[in-house]
């Protein structure tokens, strides 16, 4: 196997270093397979060397020694803008990636795989990760992988054997990392990785490291050292003191040496720095490390050395229960090299979680939160995660753009992204939304795909509108009211039909006349009741009568009703010859009709569906009456249930438009209960029936097109049961 050049970068802007497995020997071949630590500088910087076309940014130890940007005493190359701290490059994304790349190339060049340490805190944003990737690309650092400092510390500790008995599956390792603002706390769990042929331990990271702010962070140390050095300046013209290399050495506890500094006029001044840093005295609270209480082992990682390191260790140890394992300053770089070895060999470096991303989809319950990244998912470093179940949206015909709501765990405010479709689809099209992300490798890719359009869109989180509302507010704002439910159809009643007209007597007259007769003219009465002058019946479909109707007439109507019912009973039992007039008279009273009629009619219908005859069925048309009549008078839930059952049991292709369809239309459109009796399957079947009838009617005289529309509306009333049904 060829040995590959591997490199572990610890470019942090405080004290850079690199661990790599090759050495270039001047005048000889490169030596591979030996671990070599190349130290960069303390408080590293990059400088702009050369002029004009040959201008180039240089980093590493060469930049530390360069006269560039060290003040006017050094001639034209001393100009301040020729020098930048690596710290500022990491934090500021406005410069081209080549500048930050110099910080990497100044340490090592030509690796095939590089691992770069990044601070385990929320300050390591996805943009920062992308910046580092861009810089590595410019530095030609081979295949890059970003790994958290905490993880690298653990990897190095595992290699060193400092975890001793805790190096087993399931152990919890706490890490206190010294960072600029203070300390970062992280707990990692060790996992035995069995996916590859050889079982090895990998740290698993489940949350972002917690930042504990403190004055003894690197920032505090450096400003203390700076103040200490500046206090040595004899007068106020002491700018050259600020460029002294002793500041960094003092802050990080390295041995200080006298150092000649060049003044702005080119003269020299010898700086004799103090031997030791006077640390800012602080007391850490006793419970600051409570996060790490149940860890099996606690590691301490710092770039400081000497007295400074001892003092910080003492302060941390004082408030920490349990033992602390300090790691050497080069441990992160060495850990990065171990990670690079694993990466190059295709082994799992560590397991990482992904910050969760969610969107909003419209479901049957309205707007719903939808996780694009599953909870509790950790995956091996460098591997791509893709949402297992994409969120699905529907794109309406002709829709040229649509909104997607997004929420990231790392951001407080949700965002609304506008996606342009480009060419509006010709028909409603499903669109899938999913997320692709690699842990610690920059921003997630939010992708949308419409297979029907053969198009793929990417959603730009950064360009999306930031919403000034919480996710919950957005969700509730999107809870659109459910679609309308067609109201129950009520055919109105009016007084016109009750009064006499030039064309004939009104119902009042008829009632009055017939009430006294032994054999009332049921036919005329029924015809009157079914008449609809000015669109108004005598009796509404709810069985109401106009208020103006005198009580006497109502009593007459009631009496006639009872008599008709008697007749009907007689007919049912076969004592009387059947006639449809009474039945028509009764059923045209709609719900005013006695419930017993319903029973009788249902019996008749049941008989029919069983293939038997029934006394009511005097003719073919009588069946129409039975069905429609039943539809008109239905009030009792029990009846409705029976009717629906019978209806649905009857094969739908044999339905007649005036019989079953009419009955179903009446039932569903005029009652509140019937729709609730249906389930999804029934609705689908009825829907098919409606479509069929519509299709049959197209191009005809629409004579048969009376009940299908009502059935359709009746079907919509299924929303009584399922509010967002079609």
């Amino acid at each position, binding site marked *: 196997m060829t040995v590959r050049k591997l490199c572990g970068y610890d470019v942090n802007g405080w004290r850079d270093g690199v661990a790599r497995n090759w*050495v*270039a*020997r*001047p*005048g*000889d*071949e490169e030596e591979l397979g030996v671990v*070599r630590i*190349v*130290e960069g500088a303390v408080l590293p910087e990059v*400088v702009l*060397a*050369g*002029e004009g076309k*040959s201008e*180039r940014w*240089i980093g*590493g*130890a*060469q*930049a530390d*020694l*360069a*006269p*560039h940007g*060290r003040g006017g005493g*050094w*001639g034209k*190359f001393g100009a301040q803008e020729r020098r930048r701290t690596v710290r500022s490059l990491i934090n500021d994304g406005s410069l081209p990636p080549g500048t930050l790349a110099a910080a990497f190339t*100044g340490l*090592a*060049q030509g690796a095939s795989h590089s691992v770069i340490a990044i601070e385990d805190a929320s300050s390591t944003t996805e943009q920062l990760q992308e910046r580092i990737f861009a810089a590595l690309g410019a530095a030609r650092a081979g295949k890059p992988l970003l790994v958290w400092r905490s993880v690298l510390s653990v990897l190095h500790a595992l290699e060193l054997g400092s975890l001793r008995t805790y190096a087993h599956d399931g152990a919890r390792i706490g890490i206190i990392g010294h960072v600029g603002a203070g300390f970062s706390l992280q707990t990692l769990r060790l996992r035995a990785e069995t996916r590859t042929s050889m079982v090895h331990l990998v740290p698993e990271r489940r949350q972002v490291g917690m930042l504990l702010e403190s004055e003894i962070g690197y920032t505090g140390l450096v400003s203390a050292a700076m103040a200490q050095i500046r206090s040595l300046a004899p007068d106020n013209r002491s700018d050259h003191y600020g460029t002294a290399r002793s500041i960094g050495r003092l802050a990080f506890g390295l041995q200080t*040496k*006298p*150092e*000649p500094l060049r003044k702005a006029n080119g*003269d*020299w*001044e*010898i700086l004799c720095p103090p031997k030791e840093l006077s640390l800012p005295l602080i007391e850490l609270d006793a419970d600051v490390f409570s996060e790490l209480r149940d860890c099996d082992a606690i590691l301490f990682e710092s770039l400081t050395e000497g007295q400074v390191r001892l003092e910080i260790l003492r302060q941390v140890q004082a408030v920490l229960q349990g033992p602390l394992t300090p790691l050497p300053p080069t441990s992160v770089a060495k850990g990065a090299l171990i990670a690079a070895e694993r990466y190059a060999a295709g082994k799992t470096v560590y397991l990482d979680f992904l910050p969760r991303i969610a969107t909003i989809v419209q479901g049957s319950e309205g707007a719903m939160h939808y996780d694009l990244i599953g909870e509790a998912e950790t995956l091996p470093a460098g591997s791509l995660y893709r949402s297992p179940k994409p969120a699905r949206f529907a794109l309406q015909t002709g829709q040229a753009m649509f909104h997607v709501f997004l929420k990231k765990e790392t951001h407080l405010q949700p965002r609304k992204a506008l996606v342009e479709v480009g060419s509006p689809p010709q028909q409603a099209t499903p669109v899938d939304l999913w997320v692709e992300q690699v842990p610690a490798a920059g921003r997630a890719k939010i992708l949308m795909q419409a297979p029907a359009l053969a198009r793929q869109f990417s959603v730009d989180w950064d360009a999306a509108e930031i919403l000034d509302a919480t996710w919950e507010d957005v969700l509730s704002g999107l809870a659109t009211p459910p679609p309308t439910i067609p109201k129950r159809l009520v055919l109105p009643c009016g007084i016109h039909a009750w009064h006499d007209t030039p064309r004939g007597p009104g119902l009042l007259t008829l009632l009055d006349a017939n009430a006294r007769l032994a054999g009332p003219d049921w036919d005329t009465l029924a015809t009157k009741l079914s008449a609809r002058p000015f669109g108004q019946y005598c009796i509404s479909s709810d069985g109401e009568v106009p208020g103006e109707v005198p009580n006497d007439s109502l009593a007459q109507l009631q009496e006639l009703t009872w008599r008709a019912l008697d007749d009907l009973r007689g007919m049912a039992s076969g004592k009387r010859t059947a006639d449809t007039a009474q039945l028509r008279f009764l059923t045209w009273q709609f719900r005013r009709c006695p419930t017993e009629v319903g029973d009788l009619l249902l019996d008749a219908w049941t008989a029919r569906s069983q293939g038997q005859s029934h006394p009511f069925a005097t003719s073919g048309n009588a069946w129409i009456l039975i069905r429609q009549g039943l539809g008109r008078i239905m009030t009792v839930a029990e009846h409705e249930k029976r009717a629906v059952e019978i209806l649905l049991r009857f094969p739908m292709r044999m339905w007649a438009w005036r019989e079953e369809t009419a009955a179903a239309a009446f039932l569903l459109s005029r009652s509140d209960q019937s729709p609730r009796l249906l389930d999804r399957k029934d609705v689908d079947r009825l829907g098919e029936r409606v479509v069929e009838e519509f299709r049959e009617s197209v191009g005809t005289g629409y004579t048969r097109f009376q009940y299908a529309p009502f059935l359709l509306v009746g079907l919509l009333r299924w929303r009584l049961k399922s509010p967002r049904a079609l």
Partner: protein
Amino acid sequence: MRRFERPWSGQELKSGVPYGPAACLVSETGREVPKGFEHAELMTGEFRGEARKLLLHPYPKRGAGQKPLREDFPIRPPLNREPKTQDEEFAAETLRRMNEVLARIQELEDALDDPISLWPRLRAAWKRAEDEADPRMAEIVKQSREIGPVLKDLEHRIRRVLRRTRELTPLDRVQELDRASMLWLSRQPGRTVAERAGPAQRILSTVRHENFDTLENRMFHAYVRLASLVAREWQREHRRAAGSDRYRLVDVFRLRCRALARDLAEMKVGVAEPGITPNYVLIQDKGYRTVRLAWERLIRRERILDDLWAWQAQTWTDFSVLAIVLAIDEMEETQPIAQSPVVWRQEAVTGRWFDQDRPLAVFWLEQTGRIVEVQARPEQPGALLTLARAHVSLRITDPSRSNLPRRVAVWTPHAMERLNIEKAAKGAVATLAEITRIASNEIMRDGLILTPAHGEAGHATSSQGTARVDVIALDASGDTLGKGMEALRDFIRRDIWRGNE
């Protein structure tokens, strides 16, 4: 334009007298450089308000050149010819020395790999170069190691193509007829095919023959020919290393290349010209691609060789500066204060491999209490340096006092023939003694001349009044490098730091 044989020389060459092989090709002009002169600017200074430019002219490519007039110079030995005459031997020796200088400079690039210990690493590399029996790394050595196995692999699976040609073929062997064959057949007299086939019973038909003359094989052929020549040249330059592993490795490689070249020539494979556009095989086939990249590296080296040959004096200056820096850095009390980043170039331009801003390097001699700056090709040389025509110098200051800084002029004369160092010391010290009389904001009493030793190390000193000049002749490898560096160290430790009073 005032032409000089030596940079310090006060006497200019008479017009019409050409530069000879013993001369350093330097001249001085005012602000305007006359048109049409090949030159590189070393330094632009001023003396009493009058601009003075120090120019360097390249060695002529074909033995002689116009503008400025140059004659009787050795010609760079071509790769494919063994040196036979004395002149050719001399040219080959010059080339060897040039390659050694280049090797020392290129070691800086490797040493930069760990910039913190740049100088110790470079010093160690130079130290090893003093032993000529242990040859240093070179491109051809690297290729011997890396390409050797590839050649073995390619030899067995050399790509071939089947080329179609038309031939008269016996009737029973005909497999394929193309349009032209059919036309031919139709024009033959006779009614049947047998009649048309004539008494020999042969008709024209397509046949396929194996053929090796493809682009990738032509490139392969070109590589093995070039590699064997380069290997031969390397061996010639490293005769003293004949017992070493590397020498044997290169030898084996050369023989294999030669054998392969012969085989390829037998297979009627042509030779590719440099600058071919690689085809699919040359890009995708691992073996062919490796060979192509190696070939391109060798070609690039050959291509810039002319340029390097012409500008050897520039390379020599860079070498001298590195030698001085190494010698200063070696002192126990030395602390580096500043050093301009070395920016390596892809390819040498006018003999220079790397760029460096000014000041090159600044050291602090802690016990002596001096700060010394190494400067090369300064932007604003003072009046003294302008007069001395020295484009390398040391500037020494005492940080604790405000005395006038001291200047040590360093000349790095390069000529095709060896300089007479005693004569050089006398000439330089005379110039220096004159300059010391000029009032300036600097004091310049000491001078140093670093010149190629041509295999004969030497050290000469000459003084006149307060002025003193040391001449050190050194080479870039072998014993003369060791002795030269020793002399240089002695010079640095000498009393150049003190004695301002």
